[in-house]
């Protein structure tokens, strides 16, 4: 149980750091407006588009990974223990 929690925390912290940097670069139009969730600029080069794709992928990786390690796997183990006994 504790190992799964540590894995979820590692995903949240490690991948979240990279995601925060990318979102700070491409999805933070101004200091006063939306932070990390704003609209990306219209004209982006190839690297910019790749970064946006990577940012979206990392975001979903955080959400799905944390959900998996904190909810799905412990719930599955609890269910297996319940039906085993």
């Amino acid at each position, binding site marked *: 149980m*504790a*190992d799964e929690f540590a894995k979820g925390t590692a995903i949240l912290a490690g991948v979240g750091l990279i995601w925060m*940097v990318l979102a*700070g*670069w491409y999805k933070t139009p101004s200091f006063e407006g939306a932070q990390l969730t704003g609209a990306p600029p219209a004209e982006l080069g190839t690297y910019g588009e790749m970064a946006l794709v990577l940012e979206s992928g990392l975001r979903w990786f955080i959400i799905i990974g944390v959900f998996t390690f904190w909810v799905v796997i412990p719930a599955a183990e609890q269910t297996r223990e319940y039906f085993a006994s």
Partner: protein
Amino acid sequence: MADNNDEEPMADGGSGTGIVAPDDETPTWRERKERTEGLSRLTYEYFERARREDQDLRQESDYVERDVLAFPAWPHEMIRNLSLTSFFVGMILFLSATLPPHIGPPANPSSTPAIILPDWYLYWSFGLLKLGPLNPELSILGGETAAEGAKLMADRTYGVVANLVVVGFVAIVPFLNKGSARRPVEQPFWAAVGVFGVVFAFTISMLSIKNLLPIGSNLLLDVTFLLPFVAGTISYALLRSMQEGYMYDLNRRYYRLRPPK
């Protein structure tokens, strides 16, 4: 016996094999085999290694009994501190290089903002100035009209006195409890007092910005003083329930030698 004087002196007289007989708190072999995986295994190995080093230290001939037994500063603590320092320095460099902070326009000294608030870490004191509803009204002094003159002291004076009360309590706590507990489980009551203080600091800060919160003023005042007691009670019950089990016994055994109070 004269021949023994040339040998290395040993604390137990030099006659034994070096194997220490288990006492009542030493886990049995079955208990050891049960902790075979994950964090429990890691924690167990950590404490077992610490216990073994402690035992080796005690069996050395030049060992002198002291009040505190702990890890030596070199290399244990130094490696830990250097790795922590490297991590945080690297994180500062990384963040300052990738996300440099925004430098805004200079402040305009000729315009006053609509809402004036102190810095966030002073919200608690600002909230204590807003305890007007708690200022007792005395019917002897002014009669039924509570608006003017019916209170023992003005609301602003009451707020300043409330600041003195809170600061005075914070100053008294170290004299009531010397802080000899290494972790909250050992003294649940004082840990609960700490939780009460932290939660009260938060709720009184929320009270100070009550005009910005979507909660009714009366409800917010009630929550401000109820929530700390609820949180303190819950943490006390939780910590009391944690005062059992293998890890608690192990910790208590390892930290049995304490600095003098």
